[in-house]
C-alpha cells in the first residue's frame, strides 16, 4: 500500500485520547488484512497477531499509539459558545484561529477565536493564551447547542493532510498515525516473509493521557521484547540539537536507561547489516513515550524504541518525511522477522554466525 495514501486515511480518523472506541473498528479492519487474528480489547487497543514459524521464537510486541490530542467540552457560555479543557498536551499557541469539530450527538463545526486584537492591551498581546481564555464558537442557538453537545464531549482539531515537496507530508495526527502507518507497512512486509517469532502489533490507546493502553496491553500479552514506534522531534531552527533529529537522515533509535541495552545493540547492528541508516536518540530518563510504562510492566520487559522525526509536534501543522515512515517499517519488520533475537548471553543459540 502507498505510504501517503495509507497515512492520509489514518490521519482522517478521529480517535481522541480516551474516546477511541469509535475508531477502533476502522483500525481493526486495516490490521485484519495482514494478520492471522485481530481483536479489540476492553480499552480499545487494537491487537493484531501473526504466528511465528519457530517453536523457539520469541514473543515480540510492536506498539504504536493511535490516540490523538484534542479538547473536551467543560461548559457553555451564552450565544453558542463552549468552554473547553485539554485531552493530552495541547499547545494553546497552536489553537488560536483554528477550526474544530465537536463530537456531540452529531459532529458540530466550530471555530476557536479569542478576544480580537483591537481589544487587547500591549501586555496581553505578549503573553500566551490560556485554555480558560479560549472558546469554541459553534454559531448555534443555545437550546440547540445544549441538545446536541454535552459536557464531556470530545473535540478534534481540523487540519488537512497535505502532500509537500521532497516527499514530505503535513497535517494533524501525524503524532502518532505515522507510527500506526509504520505498523501497517511492517505487517504488510511480514505477510510475505517467514518469521520465527510470534508477533503482536498493537495500536494502543491513551498514550497522550496516562498510558493505559501500553500498561494493559503489555500486562496481558507479556512479550519478551517490545518495540515502541512513536514520533520524535524533527529538526527545527532554534531547537536544541540534542533533542531533534533530521528528517530523511535515518531512523532515530532510543538509547538510555529506559531501553534494553542488549536488544538495542542488536537492533542497531541489524540496521547496519541491512543498510538502514540510523540516528541515536539519547534519553536521560523518561522518554515521554510508552516505553517508560512497558519497561516496568510485570517482572520487566526488554524495550527498544524506533522513532519517526516530526516537526511542530502537537500543532495542526505537523510535518514528516514519508521516507522516514518507510524506513521505520523496514527496520521493525526485519527485526521482528529476523533470526531469534537474544535477550541475554545465556540465551544464545548455537547457530549464531557472528
Amino acid at each position, binding site marked *: 500500500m502507498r505510504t501517503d495514501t495509507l497515512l492520509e486515511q489514518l490521519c482522517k480518523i478521529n480517535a481522541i*485520547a*480516551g*474516546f477511541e*472506541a469509535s475508531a477502533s473498528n476502522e483500525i481493526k479492519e486495516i490490521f485484519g488484512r495482514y494478520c492471522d487474528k485481530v481483536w479489540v480489547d*476492553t*480499552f480499545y487497543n487494537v491487537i493484531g497477531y501473526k504466528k511465528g514459524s519457530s517453536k523457539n521464537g520469541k514473543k515480540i510486541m510492536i506498539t504504536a499509539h493511535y490516540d490523538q490530542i484534542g479538547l*473536551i*467540552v*467543560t*461548559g457553555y457560555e451564552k450565544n453558542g459558545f463552549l*468552554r473547553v*479543557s*485539554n*485531552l493530552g498536551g495541547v499547545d494553546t499557541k497552536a489553537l488560536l484561529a483554528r477550526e474544530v469539530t465537536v463530537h456531540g450527538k452529531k459532529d458540530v463545526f466550530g471555530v476557536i477565536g479569542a478576544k480580537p486584537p483591537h481589544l487587547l492591551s500591549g501586555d496581553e498581546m505578549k503573553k500566551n493564551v490560556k485554555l*480558560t481564555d479560549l472558546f469554541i464558537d459553534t454559531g448555534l442557538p443555545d437550546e440547540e447547542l445544549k441538545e446536541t453537545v*454535552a*459536557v*464531556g464531549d470530545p473535540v478534534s482539531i481540523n487540519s488537512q493532510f497535505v502532500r509537500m515537496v521532497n516527499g514530505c507530508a503535513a497535517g494533524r495526527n501525524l503524532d502518532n498515525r505515522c507510527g500506526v502507518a509504520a505498523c501497517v507497512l511492517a505487517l504488510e512486509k511480514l505477510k510475505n516473509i517467514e518469521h520465527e517469532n510470534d508477533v503482536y502489533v498493537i495500536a494502543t490507546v*491513551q498514550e497522550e*493521557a*496516562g*498510558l*493505559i493502553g501500553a*500498561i*494493559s496491553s503489555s*500486562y*496481558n500479552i507479556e512479550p519478551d521484547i517490545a518495540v515502541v514506534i512513536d514520533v520524535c522531534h524533527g529538526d527545527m531552527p532554534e531547537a536544541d540539537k540534542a533533542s531533534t533529529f533530521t528528517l530523511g537522515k535515518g531512523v532515530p533509535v532510543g538509547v538510555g536507561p529506559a531501553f534494553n541495552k542488549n536488544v538495542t545493540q542488536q537492533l542497531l547492528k541489524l540496521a547496519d547489516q541491512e543498510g538502514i541508516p540510523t540516528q541515536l536518540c539519547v534519553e536521560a530518563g523518561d522518554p515521554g513515550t510508552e516505553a517508560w510504562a512497558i519497561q516496568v510492566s510485570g517482572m520487566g520487559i526488554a524495550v527498544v524504541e524506533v522513532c519517526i522525526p516530526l516537526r511542530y509536534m502537537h500543532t495542526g501543522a505537523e510535518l514528516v518525511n514519508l521516507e522516514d515512515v518507510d524506513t521505520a517499517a523496514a527496520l521493525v519488520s526485519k527485526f521482528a522477522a529476523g533470526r531469534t533475537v537474544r535477550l541475554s548471553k545465556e540465551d544464545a543459540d548455537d547457530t549464531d554466525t557472528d
Partner: protein
Amino acid sequence: MIELVRELADAYGPSGREDEIRGVIRKKISGKVDELYTDTLGNLIAVKKGNGKRIMLAAHMDEIGVVATYIEENGFIRFSNIGGVSPVFSLGQRVRFANGVCGCVCYEEKLKEPKDLNFSKMFIDIGTNSRERTMEYVSPGDIAVFEAGTIEQNGRYISKALDDRIGCAVLIELIGQLKEVKNEIAFVFTVQEEVGLRGAGTAAYAIKPDLAVAVDVTNTGDTPGCNPLSIELGKGAAVMIKDGRTISHPLVKNKLIDLAKRFDIQYQLEVIEKGGNDAGSIHTTAGGIPSGGVSIPCRYMHSPCEMVDAGDVNNVVKLLKAFIQSED
C-alpha cells in the same frame, strides 16, 4: 445521615494512620456484609457476595493532615504537610494529634509577603515552654488533623474531612440498604489516597474487579470569583467524565448516565483538569480495570469547612445503588 456523617468526619485518620477511622467504619458495617477484612496497607474491604460481575466501589478513609518534623527548644513544633494542605487554609486553625492534644497553627510574624507563606515559616503551638514538655505529648513523626465540628444547615453538611468521609458515608449507607445483591460488590474503604492514591491500587490488585467506581468529592464552580467549572452544589450526583488521572471508561461512564436518566436521578457531568481520585490508581492496576467515578460536589475542599449538599449525597447513593444492582 447527619449523625453518621458527624461520626465519620470527626474521627481521626490522616493518610498512613487510619486505624481510628477504620475502627469506626468497621463497627458500622460489621455483620451486614459477607466478608470483612483489613489488608496489608490498611484498606478495609467489605464484600457482599453475589453472582454476575465483580464491582469495586472505593471511598478513601484518610484525610489530609500535618506531621511534626522538629521540636524547637522552646517547645514550638515545626511541621510539614500530609497530602494537599494549603498554608493559607491552615493558618489560624486548630489541629489535633492522635492522643487528643490540640495545637494552634501560626506563622513567623516577621514574614513580609503573604506569598512567601510556606510551611517552613509556620509552626504549631500546644502551649508548652520547652522541648522536654512538648515531647511528653508530641514526637517528630506524629500527625495532626484539622479540628472542626460537623454542622447541618440549610440542607448542607459542613465539616472537615468530608473529603472523603462523605464518600465513606455513602458506602455505609449502601451496605445498610442492600439486602440481596445481584453482582458481587467489594466496598473498599481505602487508605493513603491523599498522598498519591496509594491504597486503592493494591486493593484492586487483590480483588481483581471487573469494574470499579471511585466515590469521592469534587470541586464546584459556583462561588464568587472562582475558576470556571460546571459542577454546582445541589445540582445532583457528579458523574466523572475525566479528571487529572483518569478518563472514565465508556462502559462505566455511559452506564451511569443511562441509569441516571432511566431512574430520573439528578446528575451532572464532571470534567476536571488537575487532581485525581482512587480511579487513577485502580484503572492502571494489573491489566487495566475499566473505571469511573461518581462524585459528591464539595465546596472549599481541603479546608476545615468543606460543604456538601444532602440532596446530592442522596442522589449519589441512589445512582450507585442502581449501578451495582444492574444486571447488564
